[in-house]
């Protein structure tokens, strides 16, 4: 993406003014939080950058409610520090950089490794303030943990990549930190390309314990099982026993923060794919991707069948090669980061874009009225075995 100027704002009114001015001149805007993931999504058209990092204050934090409302430009690291003071946490540590902004994480619906209770971003955003492409300042949701008042525009903005408007404020559900929260790791006794790999992975899938797990498969290395074990002492001991029963080498215990940092950090030169297949095909699916992309690092969630692929290959090529050769009865794939092409959006998506950003000012894609993810959709139809 090329940018031709940068405009920094610190108040929601300034965001609205900037968007209205952009509307008058029909010049697109590219929203930026702390600028850690400008290479994600897209490809975006040339645009004036609207820097939202000044919107970084706590607007309301009532620890007893386990809810915090902050400016969307607040870095995740700041959010973590503020909530930790009260023994609380925002339960996701999304892939990327810890200095990334919470607004960008919401806008991209960022996934996170070892998320407790299968939590996703859409589960944790209670309310938002967003300035639409019309310059209107709108609010959706609220600051309470249950809310069905009105149509759910919170979910619509979450994962919209800022294409419907600029997020300026987010209200988030927090969790109290459990008494113990650690990562345990152990090495698998068998390599992915061993024909008997399924005899190790299948029982993990079938008996998946109620705890977050990832099978980490680096190039030319034995798979490692990483599990997040949390709760009180008795529960943690019981879960450790379950993990041990999955036939990994001696378990090593690590601070959860250090493990999450290792798993989540990505660099701009790496393409990130999200793939998913039926758990019936778990071993075959992982083996297939390993064989197709031997240089990639794979993070496989054996509870959900989700596979995250980090590769230095061209993202489009990498995804196409996985999809073309099958490996499971159903594979779905999405590019999170890396070069892609952009086909036509669905009718509903196009209409929603026009409803909230009629002049296509907000994070305009390189091809007019197109959306960043449709490339993935077009080639992610059920694949042949």
């Amino acid at each position, binding site marked *: 993406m090329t940018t031709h100027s940068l405009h920094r704002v610190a108040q929601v009114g300034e965001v609205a003014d900037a968007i209205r001015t952009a509307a008058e001149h029909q010049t697109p805007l590219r929203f930026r939080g702390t600028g850690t993931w400008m290479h994600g999504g897209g490809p975006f058209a040339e645009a004036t950058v609207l820097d939202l990092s000044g919107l970084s204050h706590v607007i309301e934090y009532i*620890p007893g409610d*386990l809810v915090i409302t902050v400016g969307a430009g607040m870095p995740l690291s700041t959010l973590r520090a503020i909530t930790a003071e009260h023994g609380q946490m925002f339960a996701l540590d999304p892939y990327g950089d810890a200095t990334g902004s919470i607004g960008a994480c919401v806008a991209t619906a960022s996934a996170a490794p070892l998320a407790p209770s299968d939590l996703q971003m859409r*589960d944790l955003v209670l309310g938002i303030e967003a300035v639409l492409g019309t310059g209107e300042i709108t609010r959706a949701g609220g600051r309470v943990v249950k809310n*069905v008042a009105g*149509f759910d525009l919170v979910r619509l903005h979450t994962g919209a990549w800022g294409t419907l408007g600029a997020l300026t404020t987010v209200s988030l559900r927090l969790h109290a930190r459990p008494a113990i929260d650690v990562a345990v790791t152990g090495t698998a006794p068998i390599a992915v390309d061993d024909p008997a790999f399924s005899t190790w992975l299948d029982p993990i899938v079938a008996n998946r314990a109620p705890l977050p797990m990832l099978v980490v498969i680096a190039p030319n290395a034995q798979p490692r099982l990483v599990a997040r074990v949390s709760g009180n002492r008795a529960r943690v001991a019981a879960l450790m026993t379950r993990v041990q029963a999955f036939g990994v080498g001696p378990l090593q215990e690590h601070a959860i923060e250090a493990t999450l940092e290792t798993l989540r950090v990505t660099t701009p030169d790496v393409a990130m794919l*999200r793939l998913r297949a039926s758990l019936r095909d778990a071993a075959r699916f992982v083996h297939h991707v390993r064989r197709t992309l031997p240089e990639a690092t794979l993070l496989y969630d054996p509870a959900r069948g989700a596979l995250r692929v980090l590769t230095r290959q061209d993202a489009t090529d990498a995804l196409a090669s996985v999809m073309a050769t099958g490996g499971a009865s159903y594979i779905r794939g999405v590019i999170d980061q890396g070069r892609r092409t952009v086909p036509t959006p669905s009718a509903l998506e196009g*209409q*929603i874009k026009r409803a909230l950003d009629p002049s296509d000012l907000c994070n305009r894609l390189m091809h007019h009225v197109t959306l960043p993810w449709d490339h993935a959709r077009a080639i992610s139809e059920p694949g042949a075995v």
Partner: protein
Amino acid sequence: MSVRPAMTVPLIREQLIAITGPRWVKDRRSELAPYDADGLPGYRATPSLAVFPGTRDELIAVVRCLADAGVPFVPRGAGTGLSGGALANDVVLIGLNRLSRILEVDPVNRLARVEPGVVNARLSRETTPFGLHYAPDPSSQSVCTIGGNVAENAGGPHCLKYGVTLNHVLACEVVLPDGTVTTLGDPFGETAGYDLLGVFIGSEGCFGIATEITVRLVPLPDAVHTILADFPSVDAAARAVSRIVATGIVPAALEMMDNPTIRAVEASVYAAGYPVDSAAILLCEVDGVADGLEEDVAIIRDACLACDARDVRVATAAADRQRLWQGRKKAFGAMGRIAPALVVQDAVVPRTRLPEVLARIADISHQHQVRVCNVFHAGDGNLHPNIPYDAGDADESARVHAAMSAIMQTCIDVGGTITGEHGVGLDKLPYMESLFDADSLDAMCRIRQVFDPERRANPGKVVPVHACREWHGTRGVSRSTTAVGR
């Protein structure tokens, strides 16, 4: 195409009969009477005609027939909604209760694919042999349908730990009001693009009708402990809620019942052994891996005792736990003994504000001389102030209405919201402009316009028509809905 008046309906009757057969198209007053109301007293509305498709293809054909004729419609599941959302005033009602097949249970991927008319509790019952269940459990779960749950984004006691309907639906095949069929979401959950499924869930039938729904199933817990704590005051129980939440333990459920509710339950066939002299009880459940649960129970017991609980009991045997839960889940039914009508209200407040809000509700009930029974999801701050009354008494009805308005305003004033799980429907429409400004409401209208440009699906619900700038001058169907006793 413009929306055509109700007089068009007789003209399409024969077309609908051709789709479903004559037995499933009803237009006689006596046949339509059961659909005059939902679970909310005070509102009545009669559909011009009701049609009950028996298959997915029939449902799609019905919606297309209505689209071709430009006729508005209201989808209806079991009619257990409590906000008037399923009322059809002189428009066509599409009953979905015949679409009740469980199409697929996939125990490996822990998901099920169902038709919209499948009853919530039945889905859990039929997946129990696989060691699984469907977690959202509205109090009406023995009759309410998954399609209705999707429309309302229904909750329930166990949503404190497990999440609401939104968190458990992976994909929906949907027929849009114009008859287009599309799939929202992905059955394996790897989605991209706008969260169209997320905005569809809770759209109260205004965005179309789900023809098939794929839901997550959750493993049955290894062990469950249910705690009954007895408090000398509502305030003490409310303080205990905050204290339990702050411990970091996420109970599966954390429910409160006040004394009027306890007495109603204990006087009914649903008697659960609650202490009738208690000012308030908390029903708290922890579940999951067996190891460590007793430690959690001990921490919760201490939290309750620190907030002046008079007694704390723990049930682990299934029969004992079921008895405790029966009282909670049937509390609304038990209140039927008190008066002919019952308003079950729904609002959410920040959890730390529960003590002051409950005190304010008590003041409001004295001021308006109505009896408020509180039974609610305390762990979520999701209040259900219920008022038993005689809907035939105009004066009492007016006082109930005034009390409810005051309670809603109280919840808004403390930073809460007007509905946590029942939906806006008709009943909460007047409060939407207190909660959202004009631009925010208009953005909602514009999204509705995307799904239903002719505004024929559940017209007049959720967002006040006059709040939608493009709709100014439109005839609001809800305006002619009869608000009985209001």
